[in-house]
């Protein structure tokens, strides 16, 4: 069961690096191109949420991305140490009725992968757990 761990500074230029790594890992795992794309977008959204949260608070603690795969599925965890946020997007629409970025991100996370859960971390921060069946 291969496990790959990656840590990035909680800043926006590094999210593209994670996408490259995740695409490569997903292809190495033999996922088809549609699933490669889906997982890439979902992980990028989880990282963007972590980065935006940390940039806002000025936190420098790294964001940790863990990839694990077995015969049936791939699991990816994105863990940060930023302030606690409501990942489901508490402000669903703005004053003009448009969806906010947070709620669009949540919709993408929930739609693109088979499993998506948010957990508060001991010691502060949040973990987004994603899974996709092979």
């Amino acid at each position, binding site marked *: 069961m291969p496990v790959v761990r990656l840590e990035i500074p909680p800043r926006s230029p590094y*999210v*593209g690096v994670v996408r490259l790594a995740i695409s490569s890992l997903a292809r190495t795992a033999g996922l088809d191109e549609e699933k490669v794309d889906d997982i890439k977008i979902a992980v990028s959204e989880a990282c963007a949420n972590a980065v935006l949260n940390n940039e806002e608070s000025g936190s420098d603690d790294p964001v940790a991305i863990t990839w694990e795969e077995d015969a049936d599925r791939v699991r990816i965890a994105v863990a940060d140490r930023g302030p606690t946020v409501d990942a489901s997007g508490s402000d669903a629409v703005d004053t*003009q009725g448009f*969806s906010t*970025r947070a709620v669009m991100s949540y919709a993408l996370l929930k739609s693109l992968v088979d499993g998506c859960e948010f957990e508060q971390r001991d010691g502060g921060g949040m973990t987004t757990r994603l899974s996709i069946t092979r």
Partner: protein
Amino acid sequence: MELGLDVQKKGSHAIVDVKGEIDVYTAPKLREKLIELVSEGSYDVVVNLEGVDFLDSTGLGVLVGALKRVKAHDGSLSLVCTQDKILKIFKITGLTKVFPIHDSVDAATGA
């Protein structure tokens, strides 16, 4: 990671050709360009996404923000996109009902 942004004028429309990946890092550059166009008086804007390889919620947020700006001047913001992987992002987030999405720049400008 660079985001390519080229602007052409076609009649009353400003056409923004975007190339590369629109994400949490590059979306602010697109936001600045769209704000600049509106502040210069371009209220009918076409954003051509045919050269875009990746689009996330930050990019969607920028497009929604630009739509609100042009609407404030009775303008329009339409998109050009035929790539399934990008269209999927608009469908999941319900934005296919918000943006006119065309399959060519000519269709978007009514040429």
